[in-house]
């Protein structure tokens, strides 16, 4: 819970979900699933995937989309070309940020948005004298994961 909570605070969310843990993975259940008495034996996935604990909390796509809909979360919006580079694991150069929601400050975390949807998140920092959104997680992880799971 500590890593999840820290992640939510970093991107400016006030979300405080009820969490179901399965190994290192974190989920939250809708009302129907909450009411259901289901077996835990062999269970590997349940309800809405929030993410998993690694060195940092690695958010899942469903959580990112919930956060994208929150007004308070900090966001940077990209065009298609920069968004594609981002989901390929690259950082975002400052000049490729089309719009910012919230104040942009070095050291802060931002959801990275494309066409109204969240494609990952990163931290605004200086790298070799250049200001970038450092890629901390992006949805290209799905394709990379398929090869390594």
């Amino acid at each position: 819970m500590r890593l999840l909570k820290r992640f939510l605070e970093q991107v400016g969310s006030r979300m405080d979900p009820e969490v179901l843990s399965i190994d290192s993975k974190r989920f939250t259940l809708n009302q129907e699933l909450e009411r259901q008495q289901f077996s835990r034996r062999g269970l590997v996935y349940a309800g809405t995937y929030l993410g998993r604990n690694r060195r940092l909390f690695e958010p899942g796509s469903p959580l990112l989309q919930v956060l994208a809909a929150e007004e308070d979360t900090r966001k940077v919006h990209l065009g298609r070309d920069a968004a594609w580079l981002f989901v390929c694991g690259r950082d975002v150069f400052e000049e490729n940020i089309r719009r910012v929601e919230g104040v942009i400050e070095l050291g802060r975390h931002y959801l990275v948005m494309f066409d109204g949807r969240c494609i990952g998140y990163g931290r605004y920092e200086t790298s070799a004298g250049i200001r970038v959104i450092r890629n901390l997680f992006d949805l290209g992880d799905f394709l990379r994961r398929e090869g390594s799971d």
Partner: protein
Amino acid sequence: MAWSRTLVVSREETGKQFFLDRYRMLGHRLTGDEKTPKAIRVNTIKTSDAEIMETLTSLGVKLTRVPYLDHGYVVEKSGFSLGASIEYLLGLYSLQETASQFATQTLAPNAGDVVLDMCAAPGGKTTQIAAYMGNKGLLYAVDVDRRRVYALENNLERCGVENGLVYHGDVTSLDLGTRFSKVLLDAPCSGNYITDPGWFRKRSIEDVHRNAETQRRLLTAVVRHLEPEGTLLYATCSLEPEENELNMEWLLSNHEVTLEEIDGPGEKGLTEVFGQRLSEEISKCHRFWPNITHTQGFFLAKVVMR
């Protein structure tokens, strides 16, 4: 003398001509070179057909709607891999062959159902079921292969499924603690040559018989999991009657079930197989023949518990 039997099998009961001769005896002159086009399914949990059509068209992708599918499109032209676009990663669509999409559509799950997807990985049909359910109700997905279960989990995450419970285990022995109004058994099968170019080299009639036995074991488990009046959609991507009509004939003879007619492209289930006469009920099943539907080979049966 097991080795000599194996030799006979490899000479006479495998190979392209052996299987094409079987299909001819079932009334279809196939060449073995038929193809199925790439297809996508719009994920209505996250987007609409109109939105994804507009986006992909603007990127130079040419799509044609498949008339018998609710949200399926054939890809006529694309300048990039549709399995590696931002929209794919966002779960706005999935790559799913057309006959495969028709299976879930035939089961017709809805928000009030408790659904079991028995051999669920890698999850193409599971995510489609969730979309039909509008992410409501309860969707159990089970698979025995841990590696494939990872792919299933990834698919559920990508497509934004929120009503799913995924289990790793053998569905014939797992106690899920509930009964289901609808079950999809997309059974492990011999497959077909449309989606596997090396299929004729790999398969023998013994594989077909072995798979048919596994399928009967799974069908027996379905009966345990279904509630009275509950519906099973049995599907295989095999063209072999042993895995299809003959299994349904066996199910009708051994369990209290009936078949419901399936309407769609393709043909009715076979009621005569290599000289063996089957129940007329079997004609309610449905077959996708590659030469007729221009899809992969597919078999569907809608079974209702009495």
